[in-house]
């Protein structure tokens, strides 16, 4: 018996040791080693061209996209609303978005920038800083990739620089001078990053672009697979956009738009008027235009079918007109998809065009509707108008879903007066098309188009020469003639021509996030404070329509204007971290 017990215990002991053995009893220091992990390291990424490129592709994914499409910080800017609703072009009825919660009622203040993702550009949430960091990490590490040739490395670095430049361009236009990040910071590094002057910021952006230009290919060689990558034309175009913004009176002026510490430190203006900036803008534009005209790839889409051409110009991928496009998907997944909810947002009220915008579109013959010779018929207000109207705004009676659009009160697009789909009497058509053909279609955001460059060139020429030159007319008319709209009236004064160009930009580039920056760079207080209108259309018994304009819901700044609205506030949390950020004036 006693031996049985002992054998039993010995076998149990062996069993236990055996089980222990499964987990390998490490007696030495190895015991506390971490088991190998499958996590990737920086070294493994930059050990192979394919992985290194994927790091850059991720940086591409941080690029700004102009429509609300998803729940991420980047794709839900303004909380499902769109920035054009801040301008005179569009009115938003989306109750829960940033436009109606913060901007229209005047609730926006610096504190909002701390947490809310509902502002027009969030210093913390936009993802710009992440994109810039990714680009620098790529630039700093790509040289050690063994299986990549020097030429490719140069080109990819230039593309990374463009990602930095695009993010800084957008921040520059929303905030003015910025802290300049010039490398990827390590965790232990001191983050002393004082805010640069507005001029130094612009110069840094231009330098970054200039560095990229020579290493970029003029065009994407294999657009089927790689459209959307940065090209030389893209870089030259971005430079025009940055310079034009800088040359404009908001920054390039004899006095700041508002006094304050940031103004004293020249962070929100250039400290004086420098006419050369207009020349630099024109030169940059001319350089690009010349090269475009010498080569065959780029140009306005012009097949002789004005409406289709205009749509194709902003909508279709890989056209020679879009210089920079950004994407978040290949195709939109469907109307109710949460992964691309822009279409739904338009039904909740973000897409109500103002009658004031509709009235800006001239007649097909080029004359403004206010001109007595224009042929404008107030009883048939949407007839014979600039074709761009029909592709930008859904107007009553235009073709829609294989029928006619019904925007009268009670019609299918505006069943009730307050129907958020078209509460102003109009609905945005750009990007939405007729809903059905937009969903499941190729998705891109036309960040920068060649037509903008033409108009910027015309605008700069007008400023340099204190009045329009024939060349200035030529490039405005180029835009108009593509849609068969008659030439601009000749003999305009400098001011009249300037107004004509700004209007042309609104007509051509509506809903493409251009108007807001046009209004602020020209400090157009009157466009912010004017009353805006909608149009009530009623269908009469005999099938005709009556039209009655009405005032749209007011905006706080219409009666309480302050120039502080030109630039956004920095989040106080960031200001208070004490690395050198100075709050913008008025906030």
């Amino acid at each position, binding site marked *: 018996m006693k031996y049985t*017990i*002992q054998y039993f*215990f010995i076998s*149990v*002991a062996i*069993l*236990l040791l055996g*089980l*222990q053995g499964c*987990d390998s*009893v490490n007696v030495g220091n190895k*015991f*506390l*080693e*971490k*088991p190998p*992990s499958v*996590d*990737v*390291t*920086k070294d493994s*990424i930059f050990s192979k061209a394919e992985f290194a*490129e*994927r*790091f850059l*592709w*991720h940086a591409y*994914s941080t690029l700004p996209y102009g429509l609300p499409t998803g729940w991420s910080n980047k794709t839900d800017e303004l909380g499902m609303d769109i920035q054009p609703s801040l301008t005179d072009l569009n009115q938003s009825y989306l109750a829960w978005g940033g436009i109606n919660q913060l901007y229209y009622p005047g609730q926006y203040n610096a*504190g909002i920038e701390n947490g809310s993702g509902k502002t027009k550009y969030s*210093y913390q949430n936009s993802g710009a*800083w*992440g*994109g*810039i*960091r*990714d680009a620098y990490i790529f630039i700093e590490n790509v040289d050690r990739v063994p299986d990549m040739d020097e030429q490719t490395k140069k080109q990819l670095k230039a593309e990374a620089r463009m990602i930095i430049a695009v993010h800084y361009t957008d921040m520059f236009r929303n905030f003015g001078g910025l*802290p300049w990040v010039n490398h*990827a*910071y390590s*965790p*232990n590094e001191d*983050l002393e*990053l004082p805010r640069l002057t507005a001029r130094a910021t612009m110069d840094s952006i231009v330098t970054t672009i200039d560095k990229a230009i020579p290493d970029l290919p003029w065009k994407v060689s294999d657009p*089927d*697979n*790689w*459209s*959307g990558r940065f090209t030389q034309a893209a870089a030259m175009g971005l430079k025009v956009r940055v310079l034009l913004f800088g040359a404009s009176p908001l920054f390039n002026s004899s006095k700041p738009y508002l006094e304050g510490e940031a103004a004293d430190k020249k962070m929100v203006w250039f400290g004086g008027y420098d006419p050369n900036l207009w020349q630099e803008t024109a030169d940059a534009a001319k350089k690009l235009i010349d090269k475009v005209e010498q080569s065959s790839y780029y140009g306005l889409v012009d097949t002789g079918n004005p409406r289709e051409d205009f749509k194709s110009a902003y909508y279709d991928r890989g056209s020679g007109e879009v210089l920079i496009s950004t*994407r978040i*998907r*290949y*195709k939109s997944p469907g109307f109710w998809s949460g992964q691309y909810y822009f279409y739904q947002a338009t039904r909740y009220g973000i897409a109500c065009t103002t009658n004031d915008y509709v009235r800006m579109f001239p007649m097909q013959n080029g004359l403004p509707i206010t001109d007595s010779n224009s042929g404008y018929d107030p009883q048939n207000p949407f007839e014979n108008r600039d074709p761009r109207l029909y592709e930008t705004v859904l107007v009553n009676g235009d073709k829609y879903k294989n029928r006619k659009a019904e925007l009268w009160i009670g019609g299918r697009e505006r069943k009730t007066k307050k129907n958020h789909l078209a509460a102003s009497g109009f609905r945005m058509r750009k990007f939405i098309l007729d809903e059905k053909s937009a969903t499941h279609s*190729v*998705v891109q955001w036309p960040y920068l188009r060649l037509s903008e460059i033409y108009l910027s060139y015309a605008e700069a020429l007008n400023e340099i020469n204190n009045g329009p030159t024939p060349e200035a007319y030529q490039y405005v008319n180029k835009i108009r003639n593509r849609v068969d709209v008659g030439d601009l009236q000749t003999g305009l004064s400098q001011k009249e021509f300037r107004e004509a160009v700004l209007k042309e930009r609104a007509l051509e580039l509506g809903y493409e996030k251009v108007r807001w920056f046009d209004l602020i760079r020209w400090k157009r207080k009157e466009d912010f404070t004017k009353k805006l209108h909608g149009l009530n259309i009623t269908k009469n018994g005999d099938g005709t329509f009556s039209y009655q304009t009405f005032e749209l819901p007011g905006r706080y700044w219409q009666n309480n204007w302050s120039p502080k609205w030109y630039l956004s506030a920095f989040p*106080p*949390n*960031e200001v208070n*971290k004490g*690395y050198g*950020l100075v709050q913008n004036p008025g906030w």
Partner: protein
Amino acid sequence: MTKNIHKKFKVMERKFIKISICLTMFSLMFIGMAKAQQNEITGIVRDTSGKPVQGAIILVTEHSDTQAVSDKDGKFVIDGQIGQHVEARTENKASGKMKIVKPDINITLKNGTSVIPIGFGQTRKVDEMTSSVGFVSGQKLTNKGVINPENALYGLIPGLTVLQNGGEPPTNVNMFIRGRETFNDNSILVLVDGFERPLSSLSPGEIESITVLKDAAALAQYGQHGANGVLLITTKRGKSDELQVNFSYDQSITSPTRLPEFLNSGTYASAMNEALQNDGLAPRYSQAEIDAYNSGADPYLFPNVNWFNQVLRDYGNRSNFNITFNGGVSNAHYFVLMNYVNDQGLFSPVNQNDGYSTQLKYGRFNFRSNLDVNLTDNLLFQVDVAGNVINQNKPKGGNGPSQIFNALYSIPSAAFPVKTPDGNWGGSQIYGNNPVAITSSTGYSSPNSRELFLDGKLNQDLNKFLPGLSAEAAISYNNYASYWESKTKQYSYEVINPVLDNGGNIIDTTTTTYGEDTELNYWSSFGNQRRSSDLLGKLNYSRNFGDNELQSMVLFHQNSMIFNGQNNTYHRRNFAGNIHYGIKQKYYLDVTASYSGNNLLPKGNRYGIFPAVSGAWILSKESFLANANFLDRLKLRASWGMTGNDRLPTNNPDIQAYHGGNGYWFTNQNNYQGGFVEGRLATSNLTYESSYKTNFGIDAYLFNKLALNIDLFYAKRTNILTNTDGLISNVLGVQDPLSTDGIVENKGIDVDLLWQDHVGSLQYHIGGQFSYAKNKILDMNEAYRPYPYLKRTGNSIGQSFGLQAVGFFKDQNDIANSSRQLFSEVRPGDIKYKDQNGDGVINEYDEVPLGYSTGYPEISFSANLGFDYKGIGVSALFQGTAHYNAYLNTQSVYWPLRANNTISSYYYNRRWTAANAQSATFPRLTTESNDNNFRPNSIWLADRSFVKLRMLEVSYALPVSFIQQWKMNSVKLYARGMNLFSIDNIDVLDPEFVSSGYPTLRSYNLGLHIAF
């Protein structure tokens, strides 16, 4: 694949059961069948001064379920035999033990001589302790009528706060030792026989004792793993040479402590109309419809369903069988336990399907076989085999009970009938879930799990080499696996649509059917797995030198735990030592140190040194107190030391990780270029949290009746990992690293009081415990806050913040004349807030600290009382908390109607209307999301303090003389109630469980306990 896994699992399961049965049988081989003659032993219990002690509990060590109590002359009678041992104990931890050499004996009770485990197999006499520990014997767990030992710990040990957490078995609890000291993982270390294992894996009957280690002197030996406090569980071992069998059977019925009541359909309809009217919207129900709901004449078109009554029966039931064998031969002893519990839940109907029930069932089989064998005269070998098998059944796959309760807490009584006239399930398109249908007609799932614990220990006496020296070695292996099987199906439901005539009268109905009835669909998966193993080596050296005594040890311990999933392997290693030195049995000094490390910390930075020093002085033994007769014992303790917490809030924060991330859509086709993205920046200088703990204690025993322990503590914890986003600019462009900047201090008091006396033959005791622990965040890298009152730093961890309500808006005038509230448009009856910063608007900046944390109480207390009169016993345990808040956001109960929820009568009776604006305590009814009202504020942050009667027991022990004819040693019958009532401010829901889910339960138990 799954089938294969399933098969494998089944094979494993069979093997596992076989092995356990073999081992158990083997232990039973030792059971000697002969039963020695029992004699009546009589004796007298005296204290050290020779006075008889009344009320001492007497037991025979070898069969500890036989108990007697000494009478006023200190006399007792107990069954025992020559050669066994008699122990006497009082509640205040005085004890004495004697071997029986003749049928009458005298026992002298020595204060503080009971011995309690203090970790790593060490034990210490209470008198000699210099550290702060709490202790409870296993007996106090078995009379709680619970199946999970965690639920037996409410209010038992000062400094250990135990909170209930819903009623779905196995009802795991939240435990805190001295509150919170970190905003990261604060979970305590639970050790069963020295190795890390869940307490809930055991059954109460196998637990000999539980020790709670609280101060640095007690915790330092656990090094990096001890700072949150340690719960030491010691299991029972064989003591007697003869077989003792204990059998108990407990049958209980369970019922919900509280269930909310929702409005009947007529009142619901008018409440809905009121809400719509408040929102400026058109009413949904006409008066005729409301009348129809009220009349109940048409239960199909105008139903009035009490969904709780439809889905829950009044009582669930639970059985608990427990049998233990304890015995052995001269050189081998065993303790064997088998425990089976079966719990049937509250759902009904559950038997509408052939072949299976959809009841919530929990069946658990626990076994334990602890064997001690003296292989030689000075070599002791211990082998412990324990484990459990759990089989559960739940309605519907996956989250059945929670989905049912979600439906119960949202679907109005007016929504639809349970079944339509055609016998189909009722439903509507707004409310897809018919609670009765989900309960009975969506199949079931059965989560199953197995757990195995294996320990082997050797203890070699090395007196031969050096008197007082011994060596120990131990290994352990633990394995847990769970496996889920589901058989689920879908049901179809029918919606009844009225057909109206021109006058709006209902002339007919049509029905539409949605969904489809499907066959059972099989699905299975592995759940969790974990395995762990330990290796321990230890040298002990204990000697007495004249008046001085020395106990010391050094040990090496390494532990490896592996959970499924990446980065889930934990290796820990510990070198520790302790020297305990006593002089003249009056002065004691302990020095403890640990050098411990783990694999979570970066290389080169893995180890830390954790020292502690503590001392005790027994004043009552000093000559200057010799005349203080009332003072039976008085001891002062003090300790200081350091211990660590290595539980990191995330995996590998010190490693800079990169992972797959968003790529880009360059191509003109639907495949995109993948991306890599940089993860959170690596934490530099990653280290463990260091807790510096100071403790002062007083232990006293007065008038031979009153035991008193008081502990005061102060702890400061540093190196707590915390975010740096408040410091580092966003310009960085990547998630900020964590830093080890966090600092929290924690201070408080634990008090334990027990009065024990008798009146004639009536023995009684009354005791109370009180714990207070208040922490304060000293540093958390907090982001800038524009107003000082918004700061979290300086407050307690988890401090609630919210808006201060000052009433409800009376009318539009009131709104116009008040500060603007920026959350949503306000109307009369909405909550009006205080403008804390006077900036004229109410926004997030007006949130102030309100009350306390919603996560844990600062104060917990308990009271226990009982008496025993000639075998009839009554005992009761109350537990309470204070400085504790609840956030009342339970759907329908507190936040009604919005998002198609229903409304409780509790809310309805307290809502704001223009008529009762003065007495209302809740805002107006609304159907909108109303961000103004439904956000953290003083209305929803309610006082969660409570006092609960956790246990009330009435028992009767049959006279020994009567039961001896059946060869029984003791027979006890009892009736118990658990969670019988709660006194609190929450009223409609259990203050410990204010969410919608399976409710906390009350139970009524009847039981029988027999010892042979």
